[in-house]
């Protein structure tokens, strides 16, 4: 056994708990990244309560609620995908991962329609229509586009990450004996869901 192999092996000591710990710490950074924007939101809402109420009327509550349901369901399918791989049910796990991706895509398509509907009404950052409104309304939409936009970016990234996990599951890299990667991506996905759980009432349910 040459010395390179020996030391390479010795370095790869497996620690699933440590791996999840690292992921949780990363999730805190995401939580606080969005938390900063929630801080902004809360100050501006405090200062411009009426304008926020007015502006929120532009948003479609049913659409928002529906998207919330979609994302919550995708969280469940992701959690179930992990149970499946724990039970060595590879095909089921793969199926559930693919369903999660599909639901995420569905969420994004809905978002796309929501946004384009706004653009159609002349409401987008920097638009004349928007700038003619009161400060509070401009701020509301500024926060709306940035927060849901950044969230959407995280959904897209999540889709890619889950796709990679699906590939690894298919190729037998993720198995019932070694699935911490899938768990970690699951954790990420659940956080994306939690952020939306708070975004939904704050933007869609103020009326």
């Amino acid at each position, binding site marked *: 056994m040459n010395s390179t192999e020996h030391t390479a092996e010795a370095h790869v000591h497996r620690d699933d708990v440590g791996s999840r*710990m690292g992921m949780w710490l990363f999730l805190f950074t995401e939580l606080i990244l969005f938390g900063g924007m929630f801080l902004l939101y809360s100050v501006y809402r405090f200062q411009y309560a009426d304008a926020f109420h007015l502006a929120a009327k532009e948003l479609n509550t049913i659409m928002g609620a529906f998207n919330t349901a979609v994302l919550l369901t995708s969280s469940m399918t992701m959690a179930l995908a992990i149970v499946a791989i724990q039970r060595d049910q590879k095909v089921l796990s793969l199926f559930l991962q693919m369903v999660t991706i599909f639901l995420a895509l569905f969420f994004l398509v809905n978002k796309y329609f929501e946004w384009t509907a706004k653009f159609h009404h002349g409401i987008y950052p920097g638009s004349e229509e928007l700038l003619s409104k009161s400060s509070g309304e401009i701020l509301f939409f500024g926060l709306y586009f940035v927060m849901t936009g950044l969230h959407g970016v995280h959904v897209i990234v999540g889709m890619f990450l889950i796709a990679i996990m699906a590939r690894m599951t298919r190729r037998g890299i993720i198995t019932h004996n070694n699935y911490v990667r899938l768990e970690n991506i699951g954790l990420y996905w659940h956080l994306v869901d*939690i952020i939306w759980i708070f975004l939904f009432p704050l933007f869609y349910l103020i009326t």
Partner: protein
Amino acid sequence: MEKHDYYHEHSHSYGIYILVWLGLMALTALTVVIAGMNIGRFTVVTALIIASFKAYLVLTIFMHLRSETKTFLVFVIVALLFLGISFVLLFSDYSFH
């Protein structure tokens, strides 16, 4: 000691996740209904309380926080405290303008 790190001591059944999902859907519906009712300022507080409970369910069940060691729970609390304190101190300025 390493062997314990490899596997979760107990794997969940499918059932608990489906149950929690049903709960989350119900709570979402509840939030929408409450928003439709005219209770003024309490809408926000109620909505946030329900949202927090939904997040709690996702954290403890979906994210397996309740089956991890206590360290993870302490971590989560520390992170939430940081956000919470920032919020409170920020409003020590803004609520007195």
